[in-house]
C-alpha cells in the first residue's frame, strides 16, 4: 500500500484519501458513550418521594456521569438503584466502571478531565483528589443527610481540612471471625464476648485436640495484607480509637510500644504453633496459602476459626449455606471487654467534581436512606452504615449481621488503617514486613523496618 505511486497525481489522491479517512474517524470517535443506565430493566421502579430532588430545579434531559471501580457483575445493582431518581428528575446517569479506577481517577483529575462524581474507596485517595483542587465540597442538602443518617466517625472520613466533601456510600466490616456453627455446637463452644474469652476458647480447642485457627495471606503482589488487618484490629482493641488514629497518622511511631504490643498480640495467635495453621501446615504455611483458601479448612473440620472481612462470604463454595443455622457463619471479633465495640472496616465515598444542580441532586439522592433501602433490595453482598437502612431489606444473613454491627450504638467505626497510610507503608513495606514476620522475622525488626520506610 505504501509503495511509491507512479504519478504525482495518484500520490495526491492517496494522501488526501488517507487524511480524509482520519478526519472521519475522529468525528466518529467524538460521539458519546453510554454504557450504563439505558440498559437492562428489572429495576425496582418503586415510587419514591421526588420532592427532595425536584427542588434542585428542572433537570430534564441533563446528564450526570459517575466513575467507579465497581465493575460487572456488581455494577448492575448500582445502575438499577439509580432508576427511581432518573424517573423522578429526567436526568440520565452515565455509569462508567473501570478496574483501574484508582490510578485513572488521579490522572483524570490532574488532567482536568474528571467525571461529575467518583466513588472513592479509600480516605487516602479522597485526600489526594481533593488536593488536586478539582473536587467540589458537598452541597448542604447532602451534608444534612449525612448528619442525619451517619455517625460522626463516618462523616469525618469524608471531610478534608474541615470541609465536608464526600458522603459515605457502602461499607464492609472486617472485624469478623468465621466459624462452623455445627462444630461449635458439637464442641460446646460459646461465642466469645471479650478478647480474654477468645483466648480461653482457643486454649479450650487446643485442649480438645483441635486446631483453633487457620489463615492465609498470599495474594499475588499484595501478599501480607490480611496480617495488616489483624494488627489494626488488635491496635483498635488494645489501645482504643484515639491511639489508633494517632498510629495511622504517624503521630506515634510505628515501632513504639503500642505497635509492638499489638503485633505481639497478633503473634500470640498467628505465630503460635499450637493455634495454627489448621489443615494447612505450620506457621510458615500462612505465607504460602492464598487468602481465599485461608478459611476453607473450617468446612473440613480441620480448623475452627478464621478472621476475615464480610466479603469473605463470597468465597465459600456455592453449595454451602452461610447462616447462623447453616454450614458456616461469622461472629464479631470481640472487644477488650464487652462494653467497647470497635469495628474495623472499609467503605466508599461519593466525591463530586462539578457543582451543577443535577449533580448535587444525584449526590443528595445517593446519601439518602431512600437510596440505601432501594440498593439493599437489589441483592446480597452489600451493606451500608446508613442508619436509615432497614435491615429487613437485606437479603442475606451475613449482610444483616454486618449491618447490625455497624448500626450498634456502642460501635466505634475505624477505617482500615493501611489504606490511609502513605503508599510506601500501606501498600508496600507493611505487607512485605508482615510477610517476613510470618516466615520468622521477629517483631522488633518488623516494626523497625516499617518505621524506617515511612516517608519523611
Amino acid at each position: 500500500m505504501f509503495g511509491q505511486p507512479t504519478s504525482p497525481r495518484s500520490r495526491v489522491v492517496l494522501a488526501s484519501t488517507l487524511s480524509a479517512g482520519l478526519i472521519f474517524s475522529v468525528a466518529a470517535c467524538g460521539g458519546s458513550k453510554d454504557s450504563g443506565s439505558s440498559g437492562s430493566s428489572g429495576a425496582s421502579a418503586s415510587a419514591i418521594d421526588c420532592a427532595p430532588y425536584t427542588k434542585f430545579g428542572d433537570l430534564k434531559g441533563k446528564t450526570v456521569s459517575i466513575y467507579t471501580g465497581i465493575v460487572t457483575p456488581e455494577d448492575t445493582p448500582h445502575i438499577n438503584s439509580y432508576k427511581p431518581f432518573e424517573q423522578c428528575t429526567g436526568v440520565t446517569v452515565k455509569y462508567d466502571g473501570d478496574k483501574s479506577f484508582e490510578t485513572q481517577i488521579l490522572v483524570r483529575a490532574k488532567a482536568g478531565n474528571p467525571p461529575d462524581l467518583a466513588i472513592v474507596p479509600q480516605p487516602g485517595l479522597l485526600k489526594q483528589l481533593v488536593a488536586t483542587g478539582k473536587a467540589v465540597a458537598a452541597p448542604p442538602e447532602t451534608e444534612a443527610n449525612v448528619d442525619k443518617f451517619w455517625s460522626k466517625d463516618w462523616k469525618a472520613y469524608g471531610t478534608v481540612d474541615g470541609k465536608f466533601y464526600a458522603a459515605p456510600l457502602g461499607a464492609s466490616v472486617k472485624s469478623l471471625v468465621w466459624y462452623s456453627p455445627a462444630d461449635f455446637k458439637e464442641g460446646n463452644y460459646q461465642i466469645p464476648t471479650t478478647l480474654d474469652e477468645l483466648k480461653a476458647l482457643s486454649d479450650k480447642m487446643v485442649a480438645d485436640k483441635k486446631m483453633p485457627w487457620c489463615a492465609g495471606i498470599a495474594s499475588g503482589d499484595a501478599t501480607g495484607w490480611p496480617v495488616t488487618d489483624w494488627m489494626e484490629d488488635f491496635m483498635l482493641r488494645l489501645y482504643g480509637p484515639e491511639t489508633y488514629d494517632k498510629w495511622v497518622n504517624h503521630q506515634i511511631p510505628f515501632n513504639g510500644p503500642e505497635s509492638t504490643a499489638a503485633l505481639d498480640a497478633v503473634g500470640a495467635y498467628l505465630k503460635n504453633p499450637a493455634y495454627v495453621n489448621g489443615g494447612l501446615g505450620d506457621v510458615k504455611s500462612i505465607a504460602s496459602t492464598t487468602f481465599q483458601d485461608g478459611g476453607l479448612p473450617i468446612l473440613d473440620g480441620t480448623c475452627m476459626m478464621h478472621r476475615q472481612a464480610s466479603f469473605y462470604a463470597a468465597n465459600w463454595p456455592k453449595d454451602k449455606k452461610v447462616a447462623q443455622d447453616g454450614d458456616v457463619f461469622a461472629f464479631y471479633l470481640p472487644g477488650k471487654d464487652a462494653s467497647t465495640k470497635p469495628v474495623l472496616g472499609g467503605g466508599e465515598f461519593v466525591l463530586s467534581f462539578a457543582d451543577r444542580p443535577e449533580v448535587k441532586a444525584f449526590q443528595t439522592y445517593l446519601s439518602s436512606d431512600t437510596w440505601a433501602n432501594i440498593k439493599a433490595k437489589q441483592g446480597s453482598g452489600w451493606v451500608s452504615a446508613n442508619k436509615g437502612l432497614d435491615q429487613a431489606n437485606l437479603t442475606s444473613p451475613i449482610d444483616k449481621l454486618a449491618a447490625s454491627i455497624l448500626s450498634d450504638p456502642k460501635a466505634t467505626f475505624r477505617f482500615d488503617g493501611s489504606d490511609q497510610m502513605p503508599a510506601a507503608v500501606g501498600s508496600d513495606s507493611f505487607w512485605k514486613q508482615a510477610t517476613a514476620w510470618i516466615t520468622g522475622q521477629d517483631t522488633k525488626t518488623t516494626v523497625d523496618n516499617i518505621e524506617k520506610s515511612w516517608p519523611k
Partner: protein
Amino acid sequence: MFNTASTTPEKLLQMVAALLLFAAVMGVILFFAGRLGGKRHEKWVGYLYLLPVVLMLTFGLVYPGLRTIYESFFDAAGKAFVGIDNYKTIFTDDDQLTVLRNTVLWVVITPFLATGIGLLYAILVDKSRFESFAKALIFLPMSISFVAASVIWKFMYEYRPDQANVKQIGLINQVIVWLGGKPVQLLIESPLNTFLLIIVMIWIQAGFAMTVLSAAIKAIPDDIVEAARLDGVNAWTMFRNITVPSVRPTIVVVLTTIGIGTLKVFDVVRTMTGGNFKTSVVANEFYSQTFRADNQGLGAALAVLLFILVIPVVAYNIRQVRRSEAR
C-alpha cells in the same frame, strides 16, 4: 476519543482511529517525498523517511530515558533534589542488597546453564533418529509465555502440609514424600527459592539456545569434521577442538541474549513469589517501588541501574553479531 475505552466497539473504534492516524501520517510523508523528486533532493527524501523513526525514538525512548535519569536524583514524590541518595539506598539498604545479590545470581547462573544445556542437547540429538521430535520437546517451553510457565512451575513447587488426609499436589514435594522425606515450603525457604525460580528461566531459555546452536553446528563444514574423524579424534576432542571453536560466535550471541533477558527478568519473580521471601530482582523491585510504594525516585534509580548493567552486554552482543556477519 482519548479517554479510556470501556466497551468493545469503542476499543475497536480506537484501534481503527490509530491505524488511520498512522496511515495519514505515512500519506503525508509520502506526499511530501513525492513533491521532492529528482536527484538533487535524494538526500532530503532519505531524511524525510527517517523522520518518523527518529521522532518515535526521541519521544518514546530518548526522552523517557533522560527523564528517568533526571528523576532518579529526586525524592519519593519527585519534588526535592536528593543527589545520589537513591543510589546510596540501593547499595546500603539490606532489602536492596538482597535484590542485587539475587540479580547477580540470576545473571551468572542462567545464561551459562541454559546455553550449556542447549549446546549439549544440540550435540547429543544431532543427526539422531528422533532429532526433530527431541528438539520439539525442548523447544516447546520457548513458546509458552513467562507468566504461564511460572504458573506451571508454581504447581510443581506447590506445598501441602504433612498431615493425614492431606495429599500433595506439587510434583516435587510428592517425589520428596515418596522418597520418605517431609514436604518442604519450596518457594519460602531462602535462598533455595531463588535457585528454584532460576530453573524456570533455564527451562524456558534452553530451547532457544538449543535451536540456535543446533543450526550453527549443522553449518560446520563437513570436510572439517571428516578430516578430524580421519585423524581419529575422540568425542571429547571433537567437541573441544572442532565444534566449540566453530560455533563460538553463536555461543557468545546466545549467552549475551539470554543474559540481557535475564537481567530484565520480572514475570517469573512477580508471578511466583511477588518478590517476597527474599526473591526480588532489580526489574521487579523497580516496578514495586515505582507503582506500589509510590517511591518514584528509588524506582527511577533502579531503572537506571538496570540500564547501566545492560549496556556492556548489549554493546558486546552487537559487536559479536557484526563480527559474525562480516564473515
